[in-house]
């Protein structure tokens, strides 16, 4: 690793790096202060301060990690997948530094690293797992100089924040082009944009994908951006389509196609909103049967991706199997709480593909939604200010169900309107207060005691609902996880 640790790390072995120590001290003190004031988990402001004092903080700490840093990127599933990877590495005997509370901009990553490091600049672990935001990816890669990069998927998301997919692709490709063979890019070969983006890099590449006969889509969903061949510009053909634009793709006019897969997932068994089982095979030898307590096909991709990264990191198969069997879902992604005698399943929704997959999971067993459901839509910065994306979600598939659908949040009224145009009649549609606590109360009053209900919030709505549930004693606070 010596070649890449030129930015101050070499010096620090002999001389105390005062700038780094000062940055770390400020980050630590401010994080404690923020938590004491009850202003949240202190997961990003300390990073802003620390970065101002020492912009090389992440580079220096990352260079001192004996097993390097792993960067996890993708529109959907990055928090869950990063947590799976961290759990597997910990089971494999590593001390992991991880921006676990999901603050995935540069400042959040810096804050997490500062929190774990000693004031003398020792990183406090031997490997880093860094979940990164799509927009922050180029900076995080440049600063952390990772040994492994996971590219899990790239979907349409919050266009007001991230811009169009073409723009993100170009920036990612430029960031990856700077890496050499000391980095391995672990890529979802089923995603034609990512597979084509990682062709011909100096970095090594490891591919994964599905060969699955049960869980297929008949046609590209509305939420999928037209997948085209990078060389010919024509629309790709799919021999099998699994999720959004992920599948076994090929170009109808040239010889480009899904790359050969080094790790193949299949025989997926989806068990409602509870769990899944799947088989993961290597192209050259044996297979692993994995059982994981996360639901839905989208999580099968996350399990496969985490397994692929763990294998590149040299973790033994039996460790992977055991760690995934013990895995519990990430904060707010999907969790079950009992409150006022009702069982609530909360699932985060944040973009069209993610929402489609949650609906697919909730309706898979019964063919329609049968459990009362509250959809909570906010339009704050972290949710995306533009709620247009709701029109790309296939709510039409809820029209066959029987369950009442309630809406709340700053843009709950837009959500109710979306459901009306999806064919949900007056008999099932219940627009509730835009205030989340009031909306939650009115919703719960409509759910019979002892019954089940689904709650589908956007990011800040989830934070708010969770705060309400925490204050009322139903859920644990998240930064202690």
């Amino acid at each position, binding site marked *: 690793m010596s070649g890449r640790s030129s930015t101050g790390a070499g010096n620090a072995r002999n001389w105390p790096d005062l700038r780094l120590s000062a940055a770390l001290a400020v980050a630590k003190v401010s994080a404690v202060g923020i938590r004491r004031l009850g202003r949240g988990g202190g997961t990003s402001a300390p990073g802003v301060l620390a970065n101002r004092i020492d912009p090389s903080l992440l580079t220096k700490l990352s260079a001192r990690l004996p097993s390097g840093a792993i960067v996890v990127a993708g529109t959907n599933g990055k928090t869950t997948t990063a947590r799976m990877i961290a759990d597997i590495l910990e089971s494999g005997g590593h001390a992991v530094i991880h921006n676990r509370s999901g603050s995935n901009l540069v400042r959040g990553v810096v804050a997490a690293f500062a929190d774990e490091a000693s004031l003398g600049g020792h990183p406090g672990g031997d490997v880093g797992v860094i979940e990164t935001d799509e927009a922050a990816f180029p900076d995080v890669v440049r600063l952390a100089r990772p040994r492994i990069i996971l590219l899990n998927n790239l979907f349409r998301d919050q266009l007001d924040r991230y811009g*169009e997919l073409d723009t993100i692709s170009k920036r990612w490709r430029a960031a990856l082009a700077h890496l050499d063979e000391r980095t391995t890019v672990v890529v979802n070969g089923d995603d034609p944009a990512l597979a084509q983006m990682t062709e011909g890099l100096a970095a090594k590449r490891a591919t994964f994908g599905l060969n699955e006969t049960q869980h297929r889509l008949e046609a590209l969903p509305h939420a999928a*951006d037209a997948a085209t061949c990078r060389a010919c510009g024509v629309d790709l053909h799919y021999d099998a389509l699994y999720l959004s634009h992920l599948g076994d793709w090929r170009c109808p006019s040239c010889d480009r196609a899904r790359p050969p897969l080094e790790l193949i997932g299949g025989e997926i068994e989806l068990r409602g909103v509870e769990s899944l089982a799947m088989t993961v095979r290597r192209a050259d030898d044996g297979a692993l049967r994995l059982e994981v307590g996360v639901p839905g096909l989208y999580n099968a991709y996350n399990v496969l991706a985490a397994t692929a990264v763990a294998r590149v990191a040299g973790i033994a198969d039996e460790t992977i199997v055991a760690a995934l069997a013990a895995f519990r879902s990430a904060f707010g992604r999907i969790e079950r709480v009992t409150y006022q005698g009702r069982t609530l399943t909360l699932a985060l929704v944040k973009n069209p593909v993610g929402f489609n997959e949650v609906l697919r999971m909730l309706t898979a067993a019964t063919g329609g939604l049968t459990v009362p459901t509250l959809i909570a839509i906010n339009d704050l910065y972290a949710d995306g200010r533009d709620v247009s994306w709701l029109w790309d979600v296939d709510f039409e598939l809820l029209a066959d169900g029987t369950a009442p659908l309630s809406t709340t949040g700053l843009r*709950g*009224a837009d959500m109710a*309107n979306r459901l009306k*145009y999806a064919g949900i009649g007056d008999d099932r549609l219940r627009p509730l207060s835009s205030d989340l606590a009031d909306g939650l109360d009115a919703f719960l009053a409509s759910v019979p005691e002892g019954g089940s209900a689904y709650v589908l919030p956007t990011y800040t709505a989830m934070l708010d609902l969770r705060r309400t549930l925490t204050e009322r004693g139903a859920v644990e606070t998240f930064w202690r996880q």
Partner: protein
Amino acid sequence: MNAAMPRLLIGWLYGTKMNIYGDRGNVLALAQRARWRGIEPEVREIGLRDPLPDDVDVFFFGGGQDQEQVAVSRDLQGEKGERLKAAVDDGASLLSVCGGYQLLGHEYRPHAADALPGIGLFDLVSEAGPERFIGNVVVESQWGELVGFENHSGLTFLGEGATPMGRVRVGRGNNGRDATEGAIYRHAVGCYLHGALLPKNPVLTDWLIEAGLRRRYGAYDLAPLDDAVERAAHESAVGRAVKTR
């Protein structure tokens, strides 16, 4: 389906290419508001190299990514674009948003590439601007207050022959300078408003449907609908617009 049932043919220009920002909601709004009145809607996608059907009542043309706009611009040159203009001159209605709006002007001038020719349905030109306008928008128009969400760096300037769709009360609009938003020509409307626009601005939706039906059937008056849900969405969006910009 009853043979005597009135029908509405919705022509969705480049639906699979120009479909970002949930603009598909506009097509859903046109189709549902027809269906709820006993009018049978048919949505026909008109893709690259597809001929333009003669009998479309309402066209919708949404926004796309840069690469797709180039292909669409090329596809509209010549007969297809001429036929689209002729349909509007003959009374067909049309809504275009963002990229679709720009390509119905004379041309779009990017920063560092050749100008993309439009078809000149609207007397306007657009050029790449230095900043991106992002946020909720409220516009005063002949349909009352319209509310949507803008997300564009292109600046649009109206010529002498263009009528603005309305005046911006909240937001930046066509170019951030003259307080105009969008353009109207006969029953064709172009603008930068996503949201999706039509579902929470039902007065405009019904104007487009009614114009299309009048061309097909002569006089046609739409029956009123219960728009309580739409009005609530409209009002909450206006409230957020005022609060966030």
